[in-house]
Structure formats: C-alpha cells, structure tokens
C-alpha cells in the first residue's frame, strides 16, 4: 500500500508563527480549552511523548506547548501508513491574568492537561446591591 496519503487527520504546522530551528514535521495537537471562575484549562492530544520530553512555557501571556516525539515504527518501510510521526507544537495567547507560580500540568494516556489558575484580581466578583 502507498504512503502518499499520510499524514491523515493530524494537521501539521498549521499554527506555527515562527520557524523552528530543527527541521522536520511538527503536528498541531487537537486542543480543548475551557474556563471556570478559578482557572483556564487546556487539554491537548499529544500521544507518544515521554513525560520528560515536554517543554511547556508561559511567557508574556503566551502559552507554548512542545512535545518531543521519539522516532518509532519499522526500521524499513511501512506496509500501510495512515499517519505521520513527529513533534507536537502549539502556542496560544491567554487573555486573563494568570498566577504564573501556580501553573500545573499533567500527562495521562497521551493527553496533556495544563491548568492556568487566574490571579486573584482577575477572578469574577459578585457585587451585592444594597438596598438604600
């Protein structure tokens, strides 16, 4: 079977704004983002990354996620190839003020989850209207 259709369903380089030093294909991880009153949470599909091979940075309101993927697969050719293998990279601008010291990340079953807790002053406050 041919490999001309690889990679499928894995978009590459779509959101890279700057060029990487290292050549090769980078894949854009599919990402879910939700926000609660307390935090903003990112979940990214980044299969095949070893936990120690993540480079996660938050700088000037920009969250950058990079997962290095070690080569794997056959030593010779594939009999059938439907997706490609390479690093994952994606970068996001984060609007609200984040408590940088309290950022946490976990990796489970190939999914990276990053928690960005909001700064105290950025959290919504309920204002009670007093009767006069």
């Amino acid at each position: 079977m041919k490999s001309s259709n690889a990679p499928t369903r894995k978009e590459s380089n779509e959101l890279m704004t700057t060029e990487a030093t290292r050549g090769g294909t980078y894949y854009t991880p599919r990402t879910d983002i939700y926000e609660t009153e307390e935090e903003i949470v990112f979940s990214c599909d980044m299969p095949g990354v070893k936990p120690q091979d993540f480079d996660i940075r938050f700088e000037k309101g920009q969250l950058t996620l990079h997962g290095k993927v070690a080569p794997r697969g056959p030593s010779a050719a594939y009999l059938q190839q439907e997706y490609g293998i390479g690093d994952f990279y994606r970068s996001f601008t984060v609007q609200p003020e984040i408590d940088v010291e309290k950022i946490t990340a976990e990796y489970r079953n190939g999914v990276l989850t990053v928690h960005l807790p909001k700064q105290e002053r950025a959290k919504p406050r309920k204002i009670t209207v007093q009767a006069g």
Partner: protein
Amino acid sequence: MTPLMRWEPFQELQREMRRLQREMDRIFGRWGFELPTAALPFAAAYPPVNVWEDEEFVYAEAELPGVSMDNLEITVTGTNQLTIKGERKPTGPEKAEWHRRERAFGAFERILELPVPVDPAKVEARLENGVLTIKMAKGAEARPRKIVVKAE
C-alpha cells in the same frame, strides 16, 4: 494443452473490491465518531493505523490519546482481520465556558485486513502514552522459510 497461468477473475475482482472498500473507509469512515459538533473533520475511518512487519511479527499501531485499556477491545478474527473497538469519554466539566472543543469523543470501531496471515492466539497489545501497539505473530505459512541447499 495446459495454460501458462491460471486466470482467476473472481479472485482478482475480490481483491479489487477489498481495495475499494479500504479506500472508502479511509475517505468516509466505516463508523467514525458520533460528533458532538459538526465542525470536526473526523469523517474518515478512526483511528488511523500504521502497519509494518519483520520476519516474525506483524505490527499495527494507532494513536489513541484519552482512551484507556478498559475502554478498548482488540480482536483478531480468522487469520487476518483485526478489529480495534473502543470509546473515548468526554472530559472536562459540563458547567464551564468552552473556548475550544477540537477533541472528538464517542465510540469507534475499525476493522482492518492484515496483509499477512497471523496466529490469533499470539497477539499482544500495549497502550503507552496514548499509543496502541499490537504485535501479532505471523502464521506459519507467512514466516520466511530458510531453504537449505544440499551439496551433492
């Protein structure tokens, strides 16, 4: 008179039909995800699978982030039909403001025809960091046979 090569029109047709089926699977998906939103381009067969071999084994690999072994079922039927069936559960709270939802969830099933016959009793599956690797021992007839040339 004996013909030089036997013409097997039905086998050829069957082979062509299988190729077409694979191609259709790839484009439209056999079952695919039940999509929470219509925006996700997950129409094609899920999961995509890479296949390779060495002398003893056939390997099939798929990226299945967010799927645990408990939600995965792998079967080999006959000697060459591999089925990967499973479900990806939705994550995150219902009560939150969603900015992006690109990760699809739901049930999926993919049936693959292996290019080489395997021994269904000798199948090993491993799920590590969201990558599923299935290692299948080749059937005796598919293993390379060393032919010893006897000296006279």
